[in-house]
């Protein structure tokens, strides 16, 4: 079974233990206002236009065949110009994000760094988007990786139905999931989805004997306060198998990607989270007796 993948990043140091390869699956069921990887939201291949790379060769010029081209192959840039993707942009300015890859393709790339995983205790992390949306492909990939003795992890928003989690869990060595906030209404407002199932799944997962890491992205105006983080820490503090709790400071580095995708970015003017603030929130969580890390 093939999956739709935006990117495979090697030498990834922040997606689980050791040196890892991270596979970004395309497609997400949430709409987090701050999303760093907007190119992974849409479940279909998508055009991206990097203006600074364009050499104005004209290969993507709108033509008589553009009208009949599929919408997926036409990109309207910020000046309103329609660019027709014909697969011949040598400058890699107009590119299609989203490759169809088989589990074997992923394995082939991942295996190149096996020596690094072995020394560092690393492996492969399936991330996204929301990886569980492609559970068939993800499970097949995880199985293949594990057969080769490669440590597996998933980064998930934990919204998947319980059955799907049950289907994936046996092939996972580690689960990394987000609890973005405890307040359901606020959660829905900022992510487009309620958190009831997430919290329920978290409870269930805590009883499954698999190690997991909980993360919270600290987003200005959403959850960058002691009460919000304290509430998450309270929720997870008694979970067995919690490896650690990690706070990820908001950064606006995705802003550029939104532009290249022709999307609007709600948080483009949001302030950065200072180191002091991040540390202060980490201390709040740490008071619950859990290990807290920041990134």
């Amino acid at each position, binding site marked *: 079974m093939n999956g739709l993948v935006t*990117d495979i*990043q*090697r*030498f*990834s*140091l*922040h*997606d689980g*233990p*050791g*040196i890892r390869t*991270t596979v970004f699956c395309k497609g997400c069921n949430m709409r987090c206002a701050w999303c*760093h990887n907007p190119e992974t939201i849409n479940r279909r291949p998508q055009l991206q236009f*990097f*203006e*600074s790379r364009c*050499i*104005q*060769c004209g*290969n993507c010029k709108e033509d008589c065949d553009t009208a009949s081209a599929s919408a997926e192959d036409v990109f309207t840039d910020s000046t309103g110009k329609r660019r027709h993707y014909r697969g011949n942009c*040598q*400058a*890699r300015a107009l590119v299609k994000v989203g490759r169809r890859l088989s589990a074997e393709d992923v394995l082939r*790339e991942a295996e*190149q*760094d096996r*020596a*690094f995983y*072995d*020394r*560092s*205790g*690393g492996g492969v992390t399936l991330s996204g988007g929301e990886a569980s949306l492609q559970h068939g492909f993800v499970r097949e990939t995880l199985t293949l990786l594990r057969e080769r003795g490669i440590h597996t992890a998933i980064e998930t928003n934990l919204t998947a139905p319980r059955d799907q989690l049950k289907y994936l869990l046996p092939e996972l060595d580690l689960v990394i999931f987000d609890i973005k906030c405890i307040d359901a209404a606020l959660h829905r407002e900022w992510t487009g989805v309620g958190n009831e199932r997430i919290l329920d799944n978290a409870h269930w997962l805590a009883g499954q004997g698999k190690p997991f890491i909980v993360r919270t992205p600290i987003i200005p105006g959403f959850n960058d306060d002691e009460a919000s983080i304290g509430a998450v820490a309270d929720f997870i503090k008694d979970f067995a198998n919690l490896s650690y709790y990690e706070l990820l400071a908001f*950064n*606006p*580095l995705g*802003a*550029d990607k939104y*532009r290249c995708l022709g999307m609007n970015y709600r948080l483009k003017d949001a302030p*950065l989270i*200072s*180191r002091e603030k991040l540390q202060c929130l980490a201390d709040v969580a740490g008071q619950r007796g859990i290990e807290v*890390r920041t*990134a």
Partner: protein
Amino acid sequence: MQSQNSTEASAFTYRFRMRKLMEKKMAVTQEKIDREGGMDEGDYGRHVAPEGFRWDFIPNHADGSFYGYMGWAVNFESLLASQPVYVNPYDALAGQTFFYLSKMKSPQLTEEDIRARRTPGVVGHIWNPDFDYSHLKPFHRKYHIVHGIGNDAHYASDLQMGLELGWGGILDKLHRFQKQHGRDKALFYECEIRTVHAIQHWIRRTIDEIDRRLEAEADPDLRANLEAMREVNAWIVEQPPRTLREACQWLAWFVLAKRTYNRCGAGGQLDELLRPYYERDLKEGRIDDDEAVFTIACLLLIDAQYYQLAGPGSDGQDMTSRISHLILDAAELMDGPCNLTIRVHDGLDQALFRRGVELLFKYRKGWPRFSGDQALVDGFMRCGYSKELARKRIAVGCNWMSLPGLEYTLNDVVKINLAKVFEVALDDLYQSGDTHSIDSLWAHFIEHLQIAAEKTADGNDFHLRHQAHNEPELVTNLLCHGPVEKGLDMTAGGAQYYNLAIDGAGIAVVADSFAAIQQRVVEQGALTWKDLRWYLENDFPGSEGEQVRLLLHNSERYGQDSGNRAEQWAVKVSRAFSKAVRDQNQRYPDYNFIPGLFSWANTLEFGDAVGATPNGRRAHEPVNHGANPLPGFRDDGAVTAMVNAIAAVQPGYGNTAPVQLELDPNIADSPEAVAKIQALIQTMFDLGCTLLNINLIDEERILEAHKDPSKFPDLVVRVTGFTSYFSMLSPRFRQLIVDRILSRRGTL
């Protein structure tokens, strides 16, 4: 003994003294810049002579310069006798370099000459014109060969021997062997003896200066230090050192002497050299760790020699000891440039290793570096040497290893521009009327590679036949096994082994070019051979040219994916290069030629000599660094992919193809991240890599790169847990990283 914990500020603590020394160093650096202009190369801690000081060399040749044994001995003697002496009452050690004799012999050199001397294929004024090598010059130009003729140093002497003999012992040895030889060696011995006397005279002048300082010094702490300094120097001017301070002072004089003579920067296995003195001092209650650290820091401050730490001894046991850690403490205390390499092997003390990684990221000054024992040992054994000997071949140079006192190497000064060889081959194919095919291109490449290697080896032989009459190694000869015994210069048969390094530069340009032709011309037919020629000759003109260039540029790249076309070509090129170099052993059975892949400071010059290439590289753009892939080889710039590629092309005979990493210091921002970097380093050596240089890009450089990203094509930054080439990011993206820096500094 003093306590590090005693109150700071004015108290005579080691930290206070080091601060005083560093203040002096800063002042000297500023003075140097004011008086001599900006520096474009390291100057190893050299001081600047007082304004108005003048020394003129004594020519012995019609061309106005000086050459040969007597020319060098007389001038060295004269310079050491005239130059200022350096004593600082805060320092544990006396002495400093003020001049480099090898640079002074041609005072008429203009800036342009100096630049020209760095250009491969060109030699400046350092070669004795009596020995003509114009028969080789056309080949040097054609293949853009850095021939090394007339180049000096670049091998290691055995510092241990010096510590055991002392200056008096060295003189005795010279006299003993002088008697055993006839008149034909008289000049050699006379010049060597004069060299030792010159150094001793320099030390005695320094002792006089200490006396003068003592007369005027009222501060009891400074007086006590000056008295101890005097005692140390009075002893070691003749006798071998007994204590750690005497050992460091002895090493300092030798290091300063060879640096002054011809800028030699090869150190040794510093922990093992100092261990017996430290242990004895400690046992006899003469020293504590704080004093040991300060004394070693003073040695490191005097001159940034290349020293190795740890690694397996000849019995395979790790050589890490307490003093290895103290040397790292000393480097921390000094907090200036230093060149320490930790040799990584299975038995390496993990605490030392970890600390090395932490310090590298903490101070961001490129120390320590790491070398890979296994590949170095296996490779050198492939040349026919024993394991014990291979383990003694330690990291004492920029990209190189050497057997202290045993071998002459010409390390890092002989290079073939592989990109130029490729260009000649492609040209030849087009001119020849041969069928245009990739096999035929390869055949032309091999043919020219072979000629380039032969002419390079001929140049090495020419150098070795005449170098003693150009520039004998009067200082380093003293601590080598052979020259004194045989009455022969290291360059002229004195050494036990002649393991001559020949490095290849620009491998990625060649591999990517072959791959691009294979993919775009041969397999896809997107371009004809004829079109390719036209675009290369015209440097990809206009918009159409740019499209063609990008098409070629976006072909498979070396470093992108294990086993892809480009990597297969890179491996093939590396093997062919090794073979061409090793083949020279048959032509010159007295020498053992060892291939390496390295370009270092010459990437611009090498690139400048080569027109547009089929990998979509425009004419005169730089070639790749060492064995590194070209910038942009992968969108994620994955270090692991790069390491796999470099491991695959190791030449495999004990010389290096280093991994040159440029990283954002924030990559190792937690204990877990440090452990990951440690694992990265271990893995690269498991895979067969030989040497790692990690260059941490400080924030200033990122800010500078933001203004002109093309100046830092290799700069990798951490973006959000993964890494990316800074230059690959869009201007806005770069701005965000810059903002991140500014916000960290609290200026945003």
